[in-house]
């Protein structure tokens, strides 16, 4: 049986873990010396061999991705850390940056050394005021004590970090939209190729990585491949911060080895579901990952096992819902989110979620039509894999998966015009139009 870990979250219980003093006193920045003694390409190989996979959701092997960065293009290489954390249900990076900002900076310095980059950008979710203050403080301290800037720790390595507060758009979590936003443009995804590794920020080779991914790097360099692989599964090794929310007794961030089943995390870390409630459905990695049911609760939470179960590990943001909750209502909530957050660039995502959230409203208002279920099935297929970027795919995940697992609830709504008995109706969900992209009345001229 797996046990909770304290690798990335080791300073969560420290009062001063976020300060440079507290960080260094607990072994922080030790990986720099280890890294600077080795060739950058050897270090990338170590990351590859350690099997680190991206923690932002896609799970792509980080070392392989870093191998795509050209080293002799004559252009500067940039590292862009994605700290936008927009995925519903995800709040791991927030706490990691709040409680241990230097862990991110250490990872950045090591990663930049590996990539032969001299400048990193942190694209921070604009609403993350507190993490931002902690990061600003940490960056200032790191510069002051020579962990950032020119000639870090006398090694001749230069790394500058720029903290950028994002303006608040889910789409900017998409790496190319994030780069456009960093450049001061509208955050909309770019056409690929060229891929950011070759032509990213300002057209320069750029690596975009998630906060948690970068934090892993320092540990791998310092403690080695074998240590790293002692945690997690063969194909998804390492520690993972699971952020659990929803109808559990103690929601929060919990660090476990990759591959720990959801039920174990919920039972042992979260105190189980709320009293009197049974797990009904859950999203394993944020709202963009297909919903699973109680039958899947023992599936190991690693990239491959969750994929085999028909979903995606995503950000490992586990959103747990009980038998008191209507899945249709939950899906309406998410569909509205995607409608609101669609960047508008491509047709299926822009028009599709506009349409489908109205269909959900009708269903829950008692105005559903028998043809609506086929419509939802079909339009899900018409968005999935047809949109410009992954936002469209993510948005149809809850729709399609809920239709697969809970079709009877939909059919009940269509047949009776109301939810099945025992499901709580959440007042306000249906009628709330705040921030909505669908004006009931005319929209003024620009």
């Amino acid at each position: 049986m797996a046990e909770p870990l304290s690798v990335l979250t080791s300073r969560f219980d420290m009062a001063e873990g976020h300060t440079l003093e507290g960080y260094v006193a607990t072994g922080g920045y030790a990986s720099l010396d280890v890294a600077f003694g080795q060739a950058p390409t050897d270090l990338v190989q170590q990351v590859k061999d350690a099997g680190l996979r991206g923690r932002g959701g896609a799970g792509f092997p980080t070392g392989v991705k870093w191998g795509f960065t050209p080293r002799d293009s004559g252009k500067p290489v940039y590292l862009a850390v994605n700290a936008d954390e927009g995925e519903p249900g995800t709040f791991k990076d927030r706490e990691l940056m709040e409680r241990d900002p230097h862990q991110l900076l250490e990872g950045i310095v090591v990663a930049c050394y590996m990539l032969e980059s001299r400048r990193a950008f942190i694209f921070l979710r604009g609403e993350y005021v507190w993490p931002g203050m902690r990061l600003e403080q940490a960056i200032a301290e790191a510069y002051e004590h020579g962990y950032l800037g020119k000639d870090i720790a006398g090694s001749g390595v230069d790394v500058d970090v720029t903290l950028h507060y994002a303006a608040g758009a889910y789409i900017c979590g998409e790496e190319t939209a994030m780069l456009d936003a960093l450049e001061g443009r509208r955050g909309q995804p770019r056409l690929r190729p060229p891929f950011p590794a070759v032509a990213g920020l300002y057209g320069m080779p750029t690596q975009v990585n998630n906060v948690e991914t970068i934090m892993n790097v320092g540990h791998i360099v310092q403690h080695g491949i074998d240590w790293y692989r002692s945690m997690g599964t063969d194909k998804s090794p390492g520690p993972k911060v699971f952020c659990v929310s929803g109808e559990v007794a103690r929601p929060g961030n919990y660090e476990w080895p990759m591959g720990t089943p959801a039920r174990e995390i919920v039972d042992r870390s979260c105190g189980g579901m709320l009293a009197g409630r049974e797990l009904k459905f859950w999203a394993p990695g944020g709202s963009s990952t297909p919903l699973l049911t109680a039958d899947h609760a023992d599936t190991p939470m690693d990239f491959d096992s969750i994929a085999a179960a028909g979903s995606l590990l995503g950000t490992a943001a586990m959103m747990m819902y009980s038998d008191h909750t209507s899945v249709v209502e939950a899906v309406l909530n998410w569909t509205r989110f995607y409608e609101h957050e669609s960047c508008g660039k491509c047709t299926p995502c822009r028009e599709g979620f506009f349409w489908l959230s109205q269909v959900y409203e009708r269903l829950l208002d008692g105005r559903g039509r028998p043809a609506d279920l086929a419509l939802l099935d079909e339009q899900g297929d018409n968005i999935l894999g047809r949109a410009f970027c992954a936002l469209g795919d993510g948005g149809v995940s809850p729709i399609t998966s809920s239709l697969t697992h809970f079709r009877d609830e939909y059919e009940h709504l269509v047949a009776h015009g109301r939810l099945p008995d025992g499901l709580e109706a959440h007042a306000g969900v249906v009628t709330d139009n705040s921030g909505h992209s669908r004006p009931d009345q005319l929209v003024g001229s620009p």
Partner: protein
Amino acid sequence: MSPQAETVTVTIDGIELAVPAGTLVIRAAEQVGVTIPRFCDHPLLDPVAACRQCLVEIEGMRKPMTACSTVVTDGMDVRTHLTSETAAVAQRAQLEFLLINHPLDCPQCDKGGECPLQDQALAHGPANSRFVDQKRSYVKPVAISPLIALDRERCVLCARCTRFAQQISGDPFIELFERGALEQVAIYEDDPYHSYFSGNIVQICPVGALTASTYRFRSRPFDLRSTSGVCNHCSAGCNLRVDTRRGHIQRQLAGENMAVNEMWNCDKGRFGFAWVDHEQRLRAPHTRGSWQRLHPTSWREALTDAGEGLGRVLEETGPQGVGVLSGGRLTDEDAYAVSRLARDGLGTDNVDFRLWPRTEEEGEVLAAVAGTRGPSYDDVEHADVVVVAGLDPREEVPILHLRLRKAWRNRRQRIVAVGPALGSLAEVAWRWVATPAGDEARTLAALAGDAATGELAADVADALTGAGKVVVLAGERLARSPGALRAAARLATATGADFAWVPRRAGARGAVDAGLMPGVLPGGRRLDEPGAVARQWHRVPTEPGADARGILANAAAGGIRALLLVGVDPVRDFEDPRLAHAALAAAETVIAVDLMHTASTRYADVLLPAAAPQERVGSFTTWEGRRQPFPQAVPPQRLEQQDWDIAAQLARAVGGDFGWETAMDVRGEAAAVMDRDATTREAIAALAPADVALGQPAVAPPESGELDAVTVDHLLSTRSTLLAGADDLLATAPTPRAVMAPGDAQQLGLTAGQDVTVTGPGGALTLPLAVSERVVAGSVVLPGNATDAPVGTLADPNDPTARLRVRLSKPAAELEESA
């Protein structure tokens, strides 16, 4: 694409074909006759893959790919909607999505009948909509400029318009705003969409979201008759599609000619056609006759009166008593006809089409250029270095500006501007060799290696010697500067470059080729070596005649007693309006052939109505030397005739006969003598080197407090005869301003935005001031044709050809106030 480019083999719907590497799937499919539906795709815009309409199935790809952004690879197997159910379903779905928020107001939409959304919905879309919910609605329409209205409800957000503005014309302030289903095309609230090319976004809009004020609710596409045309506004030679209904032009669109204007044109060419139907049009012959005032009459009486007037002068004074002026707006056939009328019919060499200020050697260079083939648009686009002197392409030949911008954007072409003002080349210029007005010849000579270069010009000179392909573009204005036109030609010869003389008006190059200049016969032949011309014509004058200034001065002095004006308004266009008035008032017989009533036609004794280019066949020659024939789009409304025909009838009235029956007769005869089998590069190589005193400025520098007046004509001017009635277009015209360097403005205590009075030896005019680093110190740029007081009125009446020097001050009223 270079000819040796690698080819790859791709299969589309089972048909194998080889295409150059880098070809997009959608383009490859077109080659086998498969049209994949699309909205955002446009062959001249960068792919954006936003509308998702062109999804196709590609073997080995796990999901459908957008054909507009996917590059073919060797062995790729593509299945479109014709052979793949997946692709067909995906495409149908996009159309259904696009239509849910579309108002489906086709019956009242201007695009109905020629709408890609309508057509593709019909061809590929679902017959019924499953959308029963609420559509997005907007206030409509929104005026994004005086010319263009935006109906956001109809928009499919393909971003063609915004990409055109960014990628092609480089004009800001039309962008996508907001996100999700509220994403919309919008403008910056304080600033409308400013562009000389705005009409193109209407044409490329795949729905009825962007409409032109000149065409809204005017017609239905299926009621229109379309004729190809060639724009009559400038020497760019944009191909047009002229859409007419019941004999009236409803709109003009850019015609596709990838060698000339590609798929674009400027707003002047697109929207500047209201004059054709304008009330000021001259529709019938007029004569003074015994009434002593102009009145409508028959052609017979008018021609008789004209013949009598000309005959009397010829008899009493001889051919030297007659002067012929034409403008830069005649078709090639007309220019030739007028050239022959003057020499053969009237026996005089007093003929000129150039009413602009210039120096002596211009005629020699133009005679060399006449009838030759110059560099083409493609040559300009593919040159490594382009030297631009005396020319602001965006203001004077807008489509040339787009080509230069394309080369700059795609290839970082090195564009070198030479002169006192950088103007709109600022965005694309690699170097600006800032040169005081009048000193261009020395700068150009230095670049040619004939003299030491300054610091800035040193790397330009290096670039010119090291570059593979160089083109020198010399504007019409360059000849105002002593020796400059010759120096530009010499620079081209010295560096092995191509050379082009780039005039503003559509008929200017044809006039050069036809020999509408004293001492120059068709094809640039000299009077003493007429060659083939002597065989075509009954007679050729032996004595060189007077140029435009000489003709007008002679007429004012009584030496020239009969003036024939063909398509020219000297009172408006001649650099010295006072002299033009005097000449026309003094001449005993003034015969004017024109399209409109103008300030000059009031002096006419006989006034003959000419047909507009759209009302007749003809051809215009581009600045490249490319002759482009065009058919008749609408019939003349009353008694208008073609200028060549009028010329032939005038010849007959004085006893000559040219034997022409149709425009084709004229074109055939003209071609034999106007065209030379030579390139411009070869022709100018024979010119004598420029006679430039390299040590010192050609003109004495201005006295303290004086500024050199640099005149630049703007594209849109309320005073333009051919913009009469194009009110919405004129509403987009930038305000005419005087522009000067920041240092000069500071010294004079003037600030940008305020009105200034520009005082020359002969007069003054007041207009707002702009301050710009793009003007060399010591010069002020003035709009040539845009104010009520033409710059020519500022010149010294006793020495009108002297370089114009002006003083700038606050307007008198303001001075009084502050005192």
